[in-house]
């Protein structure tokens, strides 16, 4: 909605919005900048903003010392695995609810949503106990399952709202033209559903990557992803600002980039289609 305004007004808006935007972004910017400083420069008083000797030393130290690659690999496997597994379960479910709705579809959808409201801490011990019994504690497989289950309602909901936007008339027209079921799915439905599935995948990957209750409580050494890796920097290593910053930057950079692609889907996914 481009409203006509005076250039002066536009200039004021721009200045104000940029100032606020930079203020909100500042902690992230500061972390990224600090990651390129030496430890001494990182705690220099007064703080140095840009005029420091840029170094990559912190990154190599963090990589060497803390086995960063393994944590990263765990994050990728857990977030990726749970997303793919979730889609395998959710696509058929959302599909049938969107195209063959019954009287109970709405109740089922709302009930699925209600499982997302269950406070994690309320079921922490049972899950912990089950994990010990099943040998899943500190295993990637266990976390993939838990991540898949906690995000399944969101996946089903997002897919459902996307699928519902595919017009049924197109299917009927294809059938009239003599398309077989296989052709229908392959040439008509799949191309129309792929954008929705892709954005669901993206948002779910982000949510699983950042999840920090189950990952902190159900992992120790082997399956710990980046969330746990950063938490281990709490102290005393956390006081080495430059290294903390390098570790943090590496943990958030992939998701910041993915996140920027998923802004629009974020609203739909997190409000369960209530705000579009």
């Amino acid at each position, binding site marked *: 909605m481009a*409203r006509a305004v005076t250039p002066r007004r*536009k200039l004021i808006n721009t200045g104000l919005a940029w100032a606020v935007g930079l203020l909100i972004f500042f902690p992230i910017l500061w972390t990224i900048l600090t990651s390129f400083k030496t430890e001494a420069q990182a705690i220099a008083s007064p703080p140095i903003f840009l005029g420091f000797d840029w170094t990559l030393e912190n990154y190599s130290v963090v990589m060497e010392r803390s086995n960063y690659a393994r944590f990263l690999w765990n994050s990728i496997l857990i977030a990726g695995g749970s997303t793919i597994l979730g889609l395998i*379960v959710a696509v058929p479910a959302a599909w049938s609810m969107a195209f063959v709705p019954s009287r109970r579809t709405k109740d089922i959808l709302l009930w699925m949503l*209600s499982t997302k409201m269950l406070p994690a801490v309320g*079921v*922490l011990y049972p899950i912990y106990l089950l994990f010990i019994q099943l040998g899943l504690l500190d295993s990637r497989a266990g976390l993939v399952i838990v991540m898949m289950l906690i995000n399944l309602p969101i996946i089903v909901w997002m897919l459902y709202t996307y699928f519902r936007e595919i017009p049924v008339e197109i299917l009927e027209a294809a059938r009239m033209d003599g398309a077989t079921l296989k052709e229908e799915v392959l040439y008509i439905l799949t191309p129309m559903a792929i954008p929705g599935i892709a954005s669901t995948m993206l948002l779910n990957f982000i949510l699983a990557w950042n999840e920090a*209750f189950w990952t902190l409580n159900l992992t120790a050494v082997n399956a710990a992803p980046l969330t746990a890796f950063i938490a281990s920097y709490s102290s005393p290593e956390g*006081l080495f600002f430059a290294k903390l910053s390098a570790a943090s930057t590496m943990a958030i950079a992939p998701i910041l980039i993915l996140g920027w692609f998923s802004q629009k889907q974020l609203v739909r996914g997190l409000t369960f289609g*209530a705000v579009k």
Partner: protein
Amino acid sequence: MATKASRSAARLMMAPAVILLLGWMLVPLIMTLWFSFRTYLPLRGGDLGWAGFDNYVRFVSSSAFWPAVQTTLVIVLGVLIITVCLGIVLAILLDQPMWGQGVVRILVIAPFFVMPTVSALVWKNMFMDPVNGLFSHLWRFFGADPVSWLSDAATPSIIMIVSWQWLPFATLILLTAIQSLDSEQLEAAEMDGAPHLKRFWFIILPHLSRAITIVILIQTIFLLAIFAEIFVTTGGAFGTRTLSYLIFQRVLESQNVGLGSAGGVYAIILANIVAIFLMRIVGKNLDN
């Protein structure tokens, strides 16, 4: 177009998701309920038998309970007020015509994508550290004594960290809602000479009311469960122990599963009260 065959196929396609979620909901829930009525101390003798409602009474009458309730309320309300008020202002600002709108949007949304442990640790050490944190430099620059944020003002500090994380969410949803506002209505009001404040109060705010409600409900559910931010910063010390953190401590740290489970049941009930309102709104939306 729904034939009998397609109906049963649909049911079959839904089955895995429904069964999985049913199991995920019922199994731990029943176990929590069961434990909550037992004296169960895994490290001190295991399951020591039936406890009746003892755990429920003890959880509520423990000296840690009311402070935890208070902390939870303060944190949830504090974050809600900050994020919703600033979110409205920011959404209106971002909706104005300007240069580089897309970039500003990205800057504002970014904190939402930072994992909770990172934002907690970055704030704790690089900003709130009383010796080397950026705030301490700033305070000294103005000649004031640096503040030990996470011990002297622990709860406000956590509110600040969590607000920073959730402000993007509120802003983004409110911005989406504002953008769906009919601009003709606003222009008509502008031509009729309605001042800014009136336009905001009588046109923008009513239009946003549903989005605001949704932001409040969704955030409440997530805020009642914040964990990593407390775990990493204060570990529940200095009066920052929320209800969920108290339950976590009872269950995993002091290994009193019966007591913690009773607390868990309280938390589940509390979350469900909020959830009912959210579901009503979402459910209504499904009918359209």
